């Protein structure tokens, strides 16, 4: 029998595998472009064959044969249960409380998991402008939990983001309730250096695991906010089966895998 864990994988593959592991079987998953697509399609092909992938442009439970390059991609139509538009997805599925896990990303993520996908600097005179919310703000408000994907750099992980496009825990344990958000909140930030989770009491992010080859101190030194590292362990490596599935089945065209 071949070895369980792979020796040969890239950082993108490790992140995709980590994202997939956040999905449980039969969960309703709201996925965005890029790594979340890799992760959710991988989950569908491995431990969570009955997870339901929702794309905000209109499809429910796509059976993906080719990776979409957009959440509105024609590829998302394949063997979907239903296909309509944004209105149906956002109202009867997301706002009605049916999404178990939503995937998000952004240019800046802060200690409470608030996301900036809008702009850096003064909102009216931005130094850099990004895409804007799209469905990100909605998914952050109305999913039962969210998983955030991010590049781990000091400037991308500040104490406070310049603009809250998508609310996380806002400013602590009471933040969401005070803001009229009755449920939800971020569960994890999967970064290029590790996996961050949130303290149940303070709702601040801490380092749960660091990727193989890194040290917890090294990850902390590359974080813009004060990051607790006590108890952090090494991130579970991708299995040979997960890597094979990613390369041969999920993304043989190398759309997102380099």
């Amino acid at each position: 029998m071949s070895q369980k864990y792979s020796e040969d994988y890239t950082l993108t593959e490790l992140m995709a595998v980590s994202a997939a592991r956040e999905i449980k079987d039969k969960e309703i998953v709201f996925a965005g472009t890029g790594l979340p697509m890799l992760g959710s399609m991988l989950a569908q092909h491995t431990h969570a064959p009955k997870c339901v992938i929702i794309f905000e442009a209109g499809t429910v439970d796509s059976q993906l044969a080719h990776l979409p390059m957009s959440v509105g991609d024609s590829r998302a139509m394949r063997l979907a249960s239903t296909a309509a538009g944004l209105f149906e997805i956002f109202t009867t599925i997301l706002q009605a409380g049916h999404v178990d896990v939503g995937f998000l990303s952004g240019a800046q993520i802060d200690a409470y998991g608030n996301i900036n996908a809008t702009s850096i600097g003064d909102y009216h005179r931005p130094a850099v402008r990004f895409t804007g919310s799209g469905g990100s703000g909605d998914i952050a408000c109305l999913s039962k939990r969210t998983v955030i994907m991010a590049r781990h750099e000091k400037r991308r992980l500040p104490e406070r983001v310049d603009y809250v496009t998508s609310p996380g825990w806002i400013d602590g344990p009471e933040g969401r309730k005070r803001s009229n958000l009755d449920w939800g909140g971020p569960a994890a930030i999967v970064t290029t250096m590790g996996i961050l989770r949130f303290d149940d009491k303070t709702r601040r992010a801490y380092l749960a695991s660091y990727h193989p080859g890194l040290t917890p101190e090294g990850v902390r030194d590359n974080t813009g906010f004060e990051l607790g590292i006590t108890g952090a362990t090494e991130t579970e490596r991708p299995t040979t089966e997960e890597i094979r599935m990613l390369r041969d089945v999920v993304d043989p065209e190398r759309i997102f895998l380099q």
Partner: protein
Amino acid sequence: MPEKFTSLQEAVSMVPDGAHIAFGGFTVQRHPMAFIYELIRQKKRNLHVYGHSPGGDLDILIGAGCVSRIEIAYEADEAFGTIGPRMRRAIERGTIEWEDYSNFGMVLRFSAGALGLPFLPTKTMFGSDLLKREGFPQSSRAGDPKIASAKYHTMECPFTHENLVLVPAIKADFCVLHAQQVGSDGTVRIHGQSFGDVQEALGARTLIVTCEEIVDANQLRAEPERNQIPFFRVHHVVHVPYGAHPSACYKCYDYDPEQLAIYHERAKDDKTFKSYLDEFVHGVKDHKAYLERIGGAKRLDKLTADATLGYNPTLKRRL
């Protein structure tokens, strides 16, 4: 009503400078690109554009100087290129005014317009700067009666006492969609995801639909449950094959990775962007000439959708 059917030039000429306008599609799918190019050729100015997730349609229109204000949630060609270089520059330079909502917020605004209501309530956007920060200066809201008097309001639900966000209706002067099929009476059939097209269309004062194919009305009326927009709501129809290129049109053709790559490369810089416009918009007299300019059948055949899948599974997507 044969006068419903018109030419692209004529349909575009009905749009005055300063019009409030919404376009169908989503990021790299089913945008009325032929109409967008013709708006640029006819040098429209000061358009106020509404969208949820536009892509290259809005970016090229901004770059060509046709737009003064936008109300959107997102702008990108997704995995083909993140935020459009022209929109990014226009915002960073302050040459357009913008208002940010979420996709849910924008689609509800279109829905309110379609339902004949002044606003709709929602639970989204709470806790975000989408609510706390206003983009438009008060002078703009006060100066144009077509702009909503406020970005949003909140209210306590009179039944449950929970707090809700109220988003204002959009009643655009024009909505322009690109659909796969329109019947000879004007009935519209969209295949695949409808994005926000139906809500945008039904909320607008004038609806213009460009399409791949015009078919006998009874062909569509034989299965009315598959049609989205009744004929009497459609004011003008234009037959434009490949009218969404380089965005995708489900069941007809895929997105065009080559053209999207050329666009994103040239749109980075003012000079090379101008050369893109000169070559692919101003330098061609109509959409037929545009399709020849990008390579004609040789290029377009590569995009042809598989009849079952609705896209081309063998398309080379990473160049």
